[in-house]
């Protein structure tokens, strides 16, 4: 399975600021996924990031709030913009195990607290 790293592992931010989370994979992957897990909740897909095209956002998530970059096949960033305490969550990136594989593997996650 792919080895996925995320930076930062955790952060405490002030409301109104922005944080960019990085996701690095040790192999080339077509699709990368960004999820949010609010306290006590399950995982919710924010968007799917394909290299060379704009990210596809799920209902309830917009590009102005969660801009995503995908400059190459091993790297992506998610920015949480103009943060409020409601954005306090764990943010996770994931990749599929291979072309036409339905298995998804997750990075270690970023725990964000907004004060």
């Amino acid at each position, binding site marked *: *399975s792919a080895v996925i790293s995320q930076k930062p592992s955790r952060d405490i931010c002030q409301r109104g600021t922005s944080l960019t989370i990085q996701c690095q994979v040790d192999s080339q992957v077509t*699709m990368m*996924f960004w999820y949010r897990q609010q306290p006590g*909740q*399950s*995982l*919710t*897909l924010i968007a*799917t990031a394909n290299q060379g095209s704009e990210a596809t956002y*799920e209902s309830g998530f917009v590009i102005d709030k969660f801009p995503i970059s995908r400059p190459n096949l091993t790297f992506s960033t998610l920015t949480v913009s103009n943060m409020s305490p409601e954005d306090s969550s*764990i943010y*996770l990136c994931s990749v599929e195990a291979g072309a036409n594989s*339905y*298995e*998804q*593997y*997750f*990075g*270690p*996650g970023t*725990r964000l607290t907004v004060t």
Partner: protein
Amino acid sequence: EDKVVQSPLSLVVHEGDTVTLNCSYEVTNFRSLLWYKQEKKAPTFLFMLTSSGIEKKSGRLSSILDKKELFSILNITATQTGDSAVYLCAVGGAQKLVFGQGTRLTINP
């Protein structure tokens, strides 16, 4: 709307007990059902099921899928304190995973 429902939401048992976790789903364009274990932040992959009636096993864990009745179970035998975690069920539909709420399993020594 795609939906995944897990039960129970919480379960507390003693070490050595056997537990069964349930996952039912309603998903269009079903591709796969996956089980994950989440202890801290990152879910770790346990099983992927795509065919009905074929049991997948890994040590004390096993899982099976029923595509006719739209559910799956995850069994853990001879539980250990290290099995304490949130177990997540996710169903792959059209190019995305839909997650259930998770079952929080606590194993007491």
